[in-house]
């Protein structure tokens, strides 16, 4: 029994159906973690990409070092680090927030590279035209560069969304009760791991497929030349 739902282990099928509501609660946590993590990755990634292009060498090098470090160390290590080390500095976050933050941080390093590529793919002539029209740097990014890079970066950003979604179960190691965490607990109590773990896999499959389809649809719907933001 968990969250008020009892399981029925008579046959694998009844077992699977009876634990579905429990896994559903875990699914919600999984989706929330992915959503928060992805939002962090999208925003922080853009900030990192822009800072990396800063004219001040100290800033661009620091940011380059940071992204390279984050990209080249395992997510699990970062997660443990945030979970066990941050409290030493007086920052105590709920497990869920720590997990989402770790995901967001790791993926912001990836997305910042996507943004960087997107920015660099905008032809130099566009920057020059903006300069000739006396636009500020901010206006150039907002009105010229970002609108044109959006269609180019959607596919790559979408891939990272799918890949992040698949990585959320790692949060279960810091006591976040996501789908995997709950399936594990069900296994511990019933000594039946096959069904709960298979269910987790089975639930992930349509989720990632839907996600990919959605991204593909967005990709198709966006005008290739870019979309004005204002």
């Amino acid at each position, binding site marked *: 029994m968990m969250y008020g739902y009892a399981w029925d282990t008579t046959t694998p099928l009844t077992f699977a159906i009876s634990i579905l509501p429990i896994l559903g609660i875990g699914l919600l946590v999984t989706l929330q973690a992915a959503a928060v993590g992805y939002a962090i990755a999208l925003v922080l990634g853009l900030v990192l990409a822009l800072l990396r292009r800063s004219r001040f060498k100290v800033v661009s090098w620091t940011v380059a070092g940071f992204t390279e470090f984050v990209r080249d160390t395992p997510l699990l290590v970062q997660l443990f680090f945030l979970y066990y080390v941050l409290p030493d500095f007086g920052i105590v976050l709920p497990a869920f927030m720590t997990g989402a933050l770790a995901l967001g941080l790791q993926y912001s390093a990836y997305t910042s590279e996507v943004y960087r590529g997107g920015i660099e793919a905008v032809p130099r002539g566009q920057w020059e035209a903006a300069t*000739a029209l*006396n636009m500020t740097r901010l206006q150039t990014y907002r009105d010229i560069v970002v609108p044109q890079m959006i269609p180019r970066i959607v596919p790559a950003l979408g891939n990272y969304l799918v890949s992040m979604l698949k990585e959320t179960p790692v949060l279960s190691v810091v006591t976040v009760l996501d789908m995997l965490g709950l399936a594990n607990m069900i296994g511990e109590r019933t000594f039946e791991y096959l069904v709960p773990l298979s269910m987790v896999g089975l639930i992930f499959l349509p989720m990632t497929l839907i996600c990919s389809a959605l991204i593909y649809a967005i990709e198709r719907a966006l005008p290739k030349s870019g979309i004005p933001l204002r």
Partner: protein
Amino acid sequence: MNPIIRFENVTKRFGALTVLDNFNFEVRRGEKVTLIGPSGSGKSTVLRILMTLEPFQEGLLEIDGISYHEPGGRGPFKASETHLHKIRSNVGMVFQSFNLFPHMTVLRNVVEAPVAVLKMNRGEAESRATELLRMVGLSDKKDHFPSQLSGGQQQRVAIARALAMRPRVLLFDEPTSALDPQLVGEVLGVIRDLAHEHDLTMLLVTHEMRFAREVSDRVCFFDRGRIVEQDEPERFFSNPQQPRTREFLSSILGEQEQMRESLRCAQ
């Protein structure tokens, strides 16, 4: 009267390559000047420096009495961003490759900067843009995207876009070089009309010699980062003094004659 543009001993280097070497050049207010010369001679660089797309290392450059470099100015341009904005507000540029914003309609291309930079209200900016598009003969294309236009039409939009910022100096960097020969005429037509604007100072880099002769007050021949010869167009073309000028003119005029010939045959 004071010149609107004044280069005094300007030196511009790209690494070890010196593109402009102690360059001196003045342009009167309202003057139409054509810059010609072989590629790599520094004529486009003059425009790009004026538009603040390129910094220069030594010398003095003034536009309307304002120096490009600021006392104590930092960075490659030796000037603050604010100062560069002040400089740029006098200058507009039309590029060889048009550089229209592909994600915006024609109208939006022309309206964008006046609204964002000059803080014009959108309605006013749109009515002015419509007027400019009419002037370049593209009223009916204002809701099209650049990709739906021919090169000649795109370049005319680019001219309207530059004019919308009311520059006092307008720079044309080989505006017809990227165009199919049959589209060159429509763009030159628009530039020719502009040349009648008394107050507008125009600097034009081009290989269209007949056109240069027709619209400019002065033609300058560039070679290796210097102006080798300059004169009013009739004298310049009918009686060039320097051997380098003569050599260049005969080679380029020969080329253009051949081009016209082949076009005639094709038709």
